Every structure is written in structure tokens, then in C-alpha cells.
């Protein structure tokens, strides 16, 4: 045991205030710096068909070069981006989040009617912009991953899509988390959430930064922006310097659309077939008879929200999925066929791997009270470019994965969301549930 006094002294900050100091001729030894200017910026654009509505798809990779500290990883943990192009930003400004970013709901107030999506400097400015202080060009996508003074990212959750979404409680909004079986770094059938680590108080924590529910798919689709071929789109990435107001590196990439044609419209979500495996766990199968018109590959996104996700006090799920912490599954299609989420691909719990989708019996056992089966949603995305190949971890260590499709641009098509609620001993598709989606969307680090 020891007195609290010493602990207070040892809390680590006692000396900090004594040390904001320096001296000529003396510097901490061995500090190395990166040639940030050598980072590899790739930028492409394309059309987005959002269940019949046109939007702009943007694909970005900003990665460390082969000579970098970690080739293929994000080029910088802090940067500011701006995107210009042949568009006029929507007339209604979005609502700023805590990082002064309006991207999920519209442009920044000062950007309305202009053709530049901007950022807010990380030096204390509170001006709301599309990307705010948090938005960055990351290793994959434009995402709110900028590191802050706490030495953590502002968020580890990708933006909720579509961006610039003016539809209140958009039933088709979704968070592009990739899960097993397509996104399963360890190939153990558990996706990214394959470590069980009890948090200091309670709850589950899967050995990943808090808020991480899968692998970020790096998809950026702007609603309300009409693609155009009349002029190039230009992405500028600025890596700030060591002192406020200075710049370490600025890189720019431009891209001109070849066509504004859309991929085929996905007017409905694909059908999910549930079945019980030999162990009584539920499997989820999806059959695509064809890829969307013009697409070369597709994802089917399944999100498990646990039982009764709209309840004010949600019951416990056997796999810990909830409206706040959905469990994500992704099926990858390179062509027509059937893909399946097997019965035990849920996050790892205290007793090991968990069911992918929990039945009423499994949830009742977990909760200790009569509980419904889980509710889940389904959605399909089609691409005419190698979205999956360019994603992590498939392109890990690759500074410049191929991001362009055969058509010379990056088009995407997105279906509406279908919600599968328990119906007897199985599930039936219903109207999508807005509330739980938005809860998921606001998850932040």
C-alpha cells in the first residue's frame, strides 16, 4: 500500500508544467521525421446511384510510400482536405458535429452555394466546414480520423452514408463497416472484433479502439451532388506543420469524370435466407443472380442490432449486438452466386465466439429473461471498380492500390435498407428502422 500523496505526485503530470522548456543546442536524441511529401495520394470520382437518386462517389487513398515508416498505411494521422469540382454545393447548410464538421448533413454555412468543400484548421478555429477539424484523407477514404490533442482520432467510425444527407432520419443511411466473412483480418470468422477484453467497468471491448465495430470500407458517397464531366475534381491534402499555421506538405490530385452514366439501380435490398445449422445457430445466406448493371463486384451488408432495438432499455443479445454496438457482416460478390454468413461469426464474448444472429432462445438464455431474437438489416452495394481489392487489409502495405475500374472511373450503386425482424422462429423483412441506424451513426471514439 502506499499513501495517496505519492500517487498523486506520480500521476505523471507533476513535471509537465515544469518542462515546457527548451534550450539552444540541445534536443531530444534520435527523433526522426517522415518525408510526408513523399506520401502517395490517389483520387478518383464516379457516379453514385443511391437507390435511384444520383450522387457523387469519391475514392481516395493517401498512403505512406514504400520508403515510409509503414508502407501502405495512412500517409498522415492529421491532415486537412478540400475538394473542388464542377458542382454547386447544396443550399442548405448541414449541422456541425463536435469537430465542426457538417459532412453528414450538408456543407458548411460558408460553403453553401460554392464549389469547395473545406476543412477547419486544427488550431482552435470553430468555423463549421464540410470536413471540419476531423476530416482527413486517410489510407482509404475521406474519414473523420484526424488525431487530436488527446493523441487519439476524433473518431474511429467512418462517416454515415450518404454524405450531405438531407433526408431526416434517412431509412437508407448506413455506416460502411465491413465485417466477416469478407472483412476478417485474422481469418478466424470473427471479423475485427475477435478479442474479448472486459472493460474496466462493464461491457464488451473487442481488443480494438473503442468504437471500432468493423473494418472501415472507405466509401464516400455525396448525396445532392450531381456528377459532371465539365471540369476536373481536385482534392488537396494539407499536412499541417509543427507550429500552428504552418504547413509540412501539400499534395493535390485531380480527376475528370469520363461519363455521368449511373450503374444499375438497386431498388430493393437482396433477400436473406435464414437457416439453423447443426448446432442450432442461424446462418444468413444471400443469392445474387447477377451483379448490378455495370458493376464488377458487390457487397451485401448485414447489420445485427440485437433484440428489440427500439426498446428504451434494450435486452441483452447473446452476441452483444445492440443498437449502439451493431455487429456487422459483409458478403463479397465478384459475380453471381450465393454467399453465407455462417452460424458463429459473432464478436468474441467471455465464453468464446458467439452466434452471428441470435435466436430468441439464445437471447433468453443470455438475458436470463424471455427475449426476442435479434433484428438485422440488409443492404447491397455495387461497384465498377476494385473497391474490395483496394480496401484494408487486402491492400495493406500497398502504397498505391488500384482504385480505377475498367471504365476509367469509380461508380457505385446502393440499395435501400431492408430490416429483418423476428417473426415466429424466423425473420421477416420489414420497413427499415431509422432510429437505430442513427444511433449507430453517431458512434464516435
Amino acid at each position: 500500500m502506499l499513501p495517496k500523496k505519492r500517487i498523486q505526485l506520480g500521476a505523471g503530470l507533476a513535471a509537465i508544467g515544469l518542462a515546457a522548456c527548451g534550450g539552444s543546442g540541445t534536443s531530444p536524441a534520435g527523433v526522426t521525421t517522415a518525408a510526408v511529401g513523399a506520401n502517395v495520394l490517389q483520387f478518383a470520382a464516379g457516379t453514385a446511384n443511391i437507390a435511384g437518386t444520383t450522387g457523387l462517389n469519391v475514392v481516395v487513398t493517401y498512403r505512406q510510400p514504400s520508403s515510409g515508416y509503414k508502407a501502405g498505411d495512412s500517409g498522415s494521422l492529421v491532415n486537412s482536405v478540400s475538394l473542388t469540382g464542377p458542382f454547386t454545393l447544396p443550399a442548405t447548410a448541414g449541422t456541425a458535429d463536435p469537430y465542426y464538421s457538417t459532412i453528414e448533413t450538408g456543407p458548411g454555412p460558408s460553403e453553401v452555394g460554392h464549389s469547395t468543400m473545406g476543412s477547419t484548421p486544427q488550431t482552435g478555429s470553430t468555423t463549421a466546414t464540410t470536413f471540419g477539424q476531423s476530416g482527413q484523407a486517410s489510407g482509404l477514404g475521406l474519414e473523420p480520423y484526424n488525431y487530436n490533442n488527446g493523441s487519439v482520432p476524433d473518431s474511429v467510425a467512418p462517416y454515415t452514408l450518404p454524405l450531405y444527407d438531407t433526408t431526416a432520419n434517412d431509412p437508407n443511411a448506413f455506416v460502411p463497416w465491413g465485417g466477416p466473412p469478407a472483412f476478417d483480418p485474422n481469418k478466424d470468422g470473427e471479423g475485427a472484433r475477435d478479442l474479448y477484453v472486459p472493460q474496466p467497468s462493464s461491457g464488451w471491448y473487442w481488443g480494438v479502439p473503442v468504437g471500432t465495430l468493423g473494418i472501415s470500407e472507405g466509401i464516400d458517397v455525396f448525396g445532392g451532388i450531381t456528377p459532371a464531366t465539365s471540369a476536373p475534381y481536385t482534392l488537396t491534402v494539407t499536412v499541417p506543420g509543427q507550429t500552428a499555421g504552418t504547413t509540412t506538405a501539400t499534395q493535390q490530385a485531380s480527376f475528370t469524370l469520363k461519363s455521368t452514366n449511373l450503374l444499375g439501380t438497386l431498388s430493393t435490398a437482396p433477400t436473406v435466407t435464414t437457416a439453423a445449422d447443426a448446432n442450432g445457430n442461424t446462418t444468413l445466406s444471400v443469392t445474387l443472380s447477377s451483379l448490378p448493371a455495370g458493376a464488377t463486384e458487390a457487397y451485401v451488408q448485414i447489420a445485427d442490432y440485437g433484440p428489440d432495438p427500439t426498446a428504451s432499455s434494450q435486452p441483452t443479445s447473446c452476441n452483444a449486438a445492440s443498437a449502439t454496438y451493431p455487429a456487422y457482416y459483409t458478403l463479397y460478390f465478384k459475380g453471381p452466386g450465393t454467399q453465407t454468413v455462417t452460424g458463429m461469426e459473432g464478436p468474441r464474448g467471455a465464453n468464446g465466439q458467439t452466434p452471428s444472429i441470435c435466436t430468441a432462445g439464445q437471447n433468453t438464455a443470455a438475458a436470463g429473461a424471455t427475449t426476442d431474437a435479434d433484428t438485422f438489416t440488409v443492404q447491397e452495394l455495387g461497384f465498377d471498380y476494385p473497391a474490395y481489392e483496394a480496401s484494408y487489409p487486402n491492400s495493406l502495405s500497398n502504397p498505391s492500390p488500384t482504385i480505377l475500374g475498367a471504365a476509367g472511373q469509380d461508380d457505385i450503386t446502393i440499395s435501400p435498407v431492408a430490416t429483418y425482424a423476428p417473426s415466429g422462429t424466423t425473420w421477416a423483412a420489414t420497413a427499415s428502422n431509422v432510429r437505430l441506424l442513427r444511433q449507430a451513426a453517431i458512434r464516435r471514439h
Partner: protein
Amino acid sequence: MLSSAALPSFAAGGLSGNLSGTITDAATNQPAVNATVTAVAPTGKYTAHTDAHGHFSILGMAVDTYTVTVMIPGFQNFELGGVTIQGDQTVSIGSIAMTHTPRVIGGVRSHSASSVFQPSQTTDSFTISGERALQTLGKSFNTNENDLLLAVPGVTLSDTGTATIRGGLTTEVGYQLDGVNFTEPFFSSNASQGRFAGLGSLQVVEGAGDATQGDIGRGVINIVPKRGTNPAFGQIDLEDGFPNKDQQAGIEYGWASKDGRFSDYITAINYNQSPYNGYSNANAAAYGNYFGISNQLSNQFLNNFTFRFGKDNNQSLQVLYMYQNLRDYGNYGGSQGLSYYPGAPYAYNPVAGLVDNGDGTPNDPGYGPGTYGRLVGLNPDVPSNYLAQGAQEIAADPTRFLKLEYDNNLNDSTFLRVSYYNWETLQTGSNDLGSNAIASGLALGSYPTEDVEGGPRVGVTADLTKQFGEKNTVTIATKYETSHPIWDGYDPNAMMYLLGAGGPLADAQAPAGTPTLSDFMPGGYLSQYFPNGVPQVPLSGINYNGAYFQEFGIGLRWQWNPSPKWKTDLGVRYDGQNQHWGSNPFNTNPLDVNNPSDVNPSGLANQYVQPRETEPRAAVTYLMDPNDSLRFGYGRSVVFLNAQTAGTPAGLYNAAPFMNIPAQQGAMCGSGTNPKGFYPCANYAQELYWLYDQNFDAPDLGAALPATYSNYDFTYQHQFSNGMALHVTPFYALDTNTPSFALVRSLSTGSFVFSVNNQGINRTTGVEFGLSTRDVPVGASGFLSATYQNVLGSTPPLGQDEDSLPVNGSGSLELGDMYREGYVSPLDLRIGGDYKFKDGFRVSPVVEITAGYPYNVGTMVASSATINGQFANVPQVNYGAGTTQIPGFEYSSGPSNATQYYDPAYAGNSYDPNVAATRGTPSSASSGGQLWKPNVELNLTLEYKHKRNTWGVQFQNLFGNAYNGAIPIVNPYYQPVANGLSGPQTGVNPYVANSPAFANVPGDAYAFKNGAYLLLPLRPMTTTVYYQLSL
């Protein structure tokens, strides 16, 4: 046969030694019976007579350099100079063949006490005195103990500037003053607080030593004061320094009567200085040095009196008294935005609203203006208005010391020494100052506290030494002492916080029966009992409630010298401790009569509170030839827990008015850690006490055993023909059961509660290396002291207080992880010496070099939480919960201290994080694989002596690098861009940037503001001019 004027004791720590030899008639080769042997040194004269075998011995001689004279009527007197008596050692002058005509006797070389060639030593020990002390200190009246200690191979300084021996913790050093325990009872620190007065000699025993020494881990440091001599000596010292104020005045005088019966030494030293904090002539605020020490005043006084009596002065009585007081004055760097408690001027209070933590919120957490308003009038230490801080006294560290010693040469071969000591040292003052509060954003854990720590130690030692013939000497050493560890301290804010001032038990959240701030408000629960107004809220804190620790030991030492070439030193010790804990006045649980009362009763088992240890010691020395010797030693030793490591009893001050107030209905008191459980509170004071105990305080007592140490060393010594000497000692030490502190829980306040356990391990291998020259009256002489040490332990580098209070994660201990300890540099080198000119000039340079301190923990650290049910070593990264955050410098967790950063686009997982950026330092995969920059410091003294007058100037840190010895700390505001490149907000410390105190900061103060690490500048070059007058 022996009769001696022995006055010194045979004390642990090497206060005295023995001299022996054999006298023969050269003509007949027969023993010379009843020859008179006299040993004379300034500190005393000893006389002995040979027995029927021609053998003589003198026991209990003061450590000094003697001239030995042998006289037989009708024979030519024989005289041998330069015979140095080392502490705890028997020096033999061999066989002396007496003739009727003068002749030169060979076979015995003289060695000064400070020579590293001491071939008869059985333990690895060093003595620094006289010329050698002057060379490492630069000048007389330099009272800096560290300057002295660094001349000893094996002694280095930790990252906090505290002495360590062979890489052990600073708490594993045993301190002695004139041979008796001088280790501060609470922290096991040096009660001298790094200053000495009246240095006679420094003795350092490394390793376990012989069987007369107990309660040490890696070694003993003993400061032996001067004694009066005949002829008398004295000196006056006057000093002034710059650029900062550095004034000193001192005087000493020593005398002895011609017959040797009376002697006395007295000295007094006062200094007045402004400590160096960063560059000279710079705004202290530039370095964030708010509320630092603006001035220090020190008074030191020492008197060493000896009275010898009895036949041939065979008995003596010594009275040694010392007093010192170091007082600190505050306000260095300013006090913007702070006030102090009028009732407690040591404690400074960051009053809300005046200091913004810079997080952009209008009210800083837990201490907004509303909170402050509620505190006024309720807390006796919260001022009713804002008061500006001044340069008032903020700390006082008084120490008083008394030792009475009685020595008696009972007969020719028996020596008795009995010592009684009674001393007390206290450190009083404010624990936390405002700079801390600013840097931490006014986290509650940084709030100021007041405390008094230290305590008295009273003991008796009795040593009996008996010599059996020429070859055997047996010593029985006993010790009994009682220490009364003191930590009486309180935190003016903790109770207020718990009662609801923004705390976790704010009124709205408090369950029924929980005391809250509303109870004190008009109409609240207490108002019915205090119609004239509710008294102020009691103060919570720490109180040892009169606890006292007894320690006792007995050692049996047998020195057997089978031949002139072989010496053995065998022995065994038995040491014990009884911890007597104070009664908890707030515990009336009928089912729990134990005190301390918030621990599991199993923690009160005898093995923990009444530990006993048996420790064998063995050493052997082989004199290869007069110039070469070998020795090997093994010793097991033990260090009992001090109060700090033993337990943390909670306290409640000013609680008397509430002792008679009925407890609220449903209020439960007691400890959840005690299976005897909770009980209905007996009164309201108990409610408050247990509220604090269960939410803020560490357990009163932990089931921890004393640490044990196994020391092995091997020494080769050589003396060159020119008088230079070489001493090389490879050593190995294995410490087990060392206290290590594991995190129990993190408090919402940002503070932590730890428990102690015995899972700590330390394995040190190293080599001591010493060179010394012969002392010469004119010309060059000097020394070289070097230590290489590879210290592996359970504590990751560089945790704060790592050198004394190691804190480890539970996972790290469970996994048995070993780290290269960061508190000691693996290589320390000190070269000192002087050149004395005939005309009185003396030039004395001292160079101190360290290789830097280990600072990285490696890329793998133990998880603080189980992963899949098991602790695991995982890569360190800036994850939140789940992995241990001991990323290099602090045990406190948090991504701000991380050295590696994950890629948010693809983070990986705890086992395999995708690290996209680092702090930019060349990170080593193994712990301690990186060293901070080497430190080189040069001190230079120029002195001229003419008759009784000495003029001198001493330059310290002549290279003028204010960062010499500075240890880097993490810049918590470091924000990586990638691969170590700093980011836009790096170093823009909001608490600094937003503070008006930094308005005039010089440019270079921000030199590292963007860096991954920060350095605390220590001191610039300083100059001291002095004048000394010999009396």
C-alpha cells in the same frame, strides 16, 4: 597484552577496525614478549603489548591512518607510517623482527584510507576522506553528499538524483551517521537529506557486508563526523555565488587535550541560496516553473564530544549531536491566478474561474465557481476571498540527532561498544503546487495537500568483539530500535469532492445513508444537531495513528585468518520487525476488532506484520602477493517494509464535533475488503471516514513480505609500483520479494490506488572499477570511479518514483516481465583529482559522465486487462482500455503518453495493432534498449592558499548545459502526424498558451514544444567564490 585508548566503536557500517601483528627478536627468531606497540593518528592514540607469542592486537581503532611504533628496551625502535585502518577490517602489519640496530623493514606497504587498494578487506567497502574527499568535492565545506558519494565505485545517482548502490532502489540503501541507523522511517530515505556537515570520512559498504550489518539491501552509506585532535584545527568559510544567490558561511573547530581524555569537534554551517531551475536570468515561468522554491535557508550544527577515562583511557563516552533545518520559500515563477489557504499557507489552491484549464469549457471540471462558492465557509482551508501568494515559507525539514556511545576495552582481547541514538527528521510542507494543477488541467488529483512525514527513530546497539589468538576474532552485534513513522497529511478537497462538490457522490447520485454536502447546508441533516451552525467539514487524509515499528537483529561474525594470505569472514544474522499499527478511532465494527481495519485479516498474519529473516554472510580474501589480492563475498540481506510500503491508513481531521452525531438511517460503515463486512455506522464522523476510506484511500495494510537480497561479488585489487591502485569488482545481485505496486483501481479524480505485493524481482549484474593514485603534497593525484550495471527488474522505465516506489501493472507482474530499469544509467564515470603547486595554488577538476538513462519499455507491454481470460504481452499503442499504458515514462495510462499510434483507417487489434506512426524515436523492441543522451559535467576548482588564508573559486557545470542530467518526460500534447513528425497542436499546451504568465516567455522556452519529449532544464553554470581562514 593490550591496553589502548580506544574511543571509537565497532559499528555496523565500518566505523572502526583492528590492527594486529607479531613481534620477534631478529637475533633469536623468538617471540618478543611485552613489546610496546603504539599506533598514533590525529584522532587518537592506541597502545598494546605483545603476549607470550609475540602477538599483539588493537581492537576498535578509529578509521584513520596511523604511525605504528614498536619499542623494546635495548632494541632499536621500529616505526611504520601510513598504516590505514579500514572499517570493520583487521589490518595486519605482519611479523616485525626487531634488531639492535636500525634497519628498513619491508613487507608492509602503506595505503591511504582512500586508496582503492585495500588488500585485507573481506567486504567490498570504500572509504573517502582527506585528500580524496577534497578532490571529489573540489573544496572543503562543500556539503553536497552526492558529490562525495560519486567518488565511490558502485554508487551512482538515480534519475531523481538519489544515491543508489549497485543499481538497487534508493530505498535499499542503508544510511548511517557515525555508525548508527540514519534512515528516515517513512520513505527509507537519507535522513541527512543530502547534506552533511563536519565530514571526517565517508564509508560505503557494498552488498550485504559482514554479519554485523542488518536491514540493508544493496549496501550501507556511513558518514563519520570529524573528531577533535591535538593539535587543534579550525577553519572559517565564507562563500558567495552567482548567477543565482548562493551564500554560505561556516565554521569548524576541533581540539583535544594532550592526555587524550577530552576531545571535541564543533561545526556550524548556514547557507542561503536560490535554487537553479532552468537557465539563469530567465523568467521562471518560461519553464513552467510556477510556485517553485524561490529561496532555501539551511542551518547545520554538529558537535562531537568524547571523554576517555579508566585505566590507560580504556573507556570512552561519546556525545554526538547534530541539528539541521532546511527551509524552502515559495513563489518562484509567480503565482498568477492562484490563492492560498489563509489557514494553511503551505497549500495553494487553484481557485476556479481564475485559472482555466484550456479545454474550452466555461467551468473546469469539479471546481467551477459554483463549487467554490459552496466550499467557502465549509472547508477551513478554503479562503473566503482570493489571496495572492507570496514568498512565504512553504516547507521546513528539521532533523535533530543525538548519539551516546560507550566503549570499553574490557581486557586485552575484548572490546565492548554500546550506542544509544535518538533522532527525528521531518519533512513538512505542501505536497503539490500550482504548476502541477495547471498542467493537469486542475485534475482533482493534483490538488494540494498538507503533510508532515518522517518520524523519530530510537535505538540501542551493543557489539562485543573478542579475539581468540592471532587467527580468530568473533563479534556479536545486536540492535534494537523503534521507529515511529509519521505521515499526517490531509487533502483539503478530497472530502468536499466526495460529498458532492462535483464528485461521483454528488447529492443527486448519492444512495440513502451517504453523507453529502447537503447535510451541512441549512435545513440539512446536521442542522438539527447544531442550532448555532454546522461546523466545518472535517478534512480527510492520511494518519498513521501512532503506529510504530520495532526492528531488532543479532549478528554473529567470525573472522578467521588461517594464514597471512587467507582471511575469511563468516557470519549469520537474524533480523526481525514488529509492525504495531495504530488503532483506527473510526472503526467500531463488533465483528472486526483488528486494526488496521480495511484489510483482509489474512493480511495481518505474522509473516507480514512480524517478519523474521535469517541471513548468512561469507567472504574470503587471498593476498596473492603484497600488490595483488582477490576476494569473494556472498551475503543475504533483508529490507523490511517502511511505512510507505506497509500500509496507508486513512485519517479524518477535525471530526470531533461529529463523533456524537447519530449516523443517518441506513448508513453503513466498514470495508468491503474485509470479509467481516460492513456494519451500521455508529456516528456521523464514521460515515465521513469510511466514505473517504472506501473511495480515496489505499488499503491500510497489504500482505507483503520484506524484500530479500542475495549479493555476490568478486574483487581483484592491484597496487602499482608508483602507488596507483586498481580495484575491480564484478557483482551480481538477486532481489526477490521486492515491493511492487499494482494498480487497484483508477479513481474518477485521475488519482490511482495501488496495493503492494511481493512479486517484484530485480537482477543486477555489473562491475565496479576504481583507480586511485598516491596522495602527494605537490603534484598531481586523483581517482577514477566507474560503475557498469545492467539492472533488470519488474518495473518498466521510466516510471515516476521508479527508483523508490516501483509501480507495475498487474499483468506485468503476473507475466513476470522484466525490464531494463530506467532509474539508473548503465554506465557512470567520475574522474577527479587535483594538482598542487609548491606556491599554494591548487587546481581541482572533476568530470562526471553518465551514458544516459534507459527510457523505452520496448514495443511489447503487458495488458492491464485480461484478453480472452489471460494477461498477455501486447504491442504498446495508444489504445484506450485493454492494454497497459506504460509507454515509456509514466505508469499513468493514456494515449497521450503513447509512443506508437494506430492507423484509424485500419487499426488492427490488441495483439496485432497496425502502427502507422511513432513518436519518432528509434524504438527498441527490448526494454531499456534506448538510452537518453549522455551527460557530461565538469566542475573546476581553483584555489590559492597562503599561510592561513585560502582563496578559491569553484565552477560547477562548467559546460553550462542546463540539460545535463535531465531526464526526458513525455510531452502529453504531442500529436503525431506520421512517423514521428509533430502535428499542428503539438506543444501548444493549452494551459501554457492560455496563461498570461507565459506572455513574456523567451523564444527558446518553446524549443521543444513540438517535440515528442520534454526536458526539464536543471541548472546553468554556477560560480562560487570563497575565502577560508585557518584558525
